[in-house]
């Protein structure tokens, strides 16, 4: 969403980050009930979601504060390579 906002609306990176966070709210709120209230067992594990939230709230705070000094470029490249490996794994042996 962020590259799209930067390219199409000409927003700066910081403003695009903030805007995408606002825009995801209606998107996630609309999608969750569809996953939860499907026929059969719900496709939402509420317990796992709660513990993920606890971790990610703390992580986001630390990430924004403590990790400011981390070399972003290298971290991005490392995460992208890891993501490509996970993606290939999901395509080949899901």
């Amino acid at each position, binding site marked *: 969403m962020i590259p799209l906002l930067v390219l199409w609306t000409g927003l700066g990176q910081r403003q695009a980050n*903030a805007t995408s966070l606002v825009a995801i709210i209606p998107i996630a709120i609309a999608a969750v009930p569809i996953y939860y209230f499907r026929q059969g067992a719900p496709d939402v594990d509420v317990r796992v979601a709660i513990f993920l939230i606890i971790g*990610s709230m703390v992580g986001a705070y630390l990430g924004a504060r403590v990790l400011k000094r981390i070399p*972003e470029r290298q971290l991005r490249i490392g995460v992208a390579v890891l*993501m490509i490996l996970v993606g290939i794994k999901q395509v080949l042996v899901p």
Partner: protein
Amino acid sequence: MTLADVLAVAGGLVAGLLSGAIGIGGGLVFVPILTVGFRVAQTVAQGTSLAAIVPTALVGGVTHLRQGNASVQAALWVGGGGLVGAIGGAIIAIHLESLLLARVFGVFYIAAALLLLQRALVDPKAHQDSSATPTP
């Protein structure tokens, strides 16, 4: 609290750290943690990830709106369009077979990774101020 709960907190911590530090979405980290790490079915991973994103985005998004960081007009357009897309996408996702959905997600994931790589390698502005806010 079980071991799985502790691992979920650790997974959330990693997702939060990465989104805070380099601005990649929480969902991009949540879903593979759930499928590869927890061996959860793809549809359940996507539904659970979306549920975990709601409170995070509410807190972060409302804060940004109050501080005037977000473009309200762009958020309305993207959020409105995304809302329609999300309803359609979610209906398709819950009807797709989980293994096929995992493969589709894999292709999307590689594309997202290439975009991230491009931002790191090509765009000089990417290093300046993108670390401020986590995005799902």
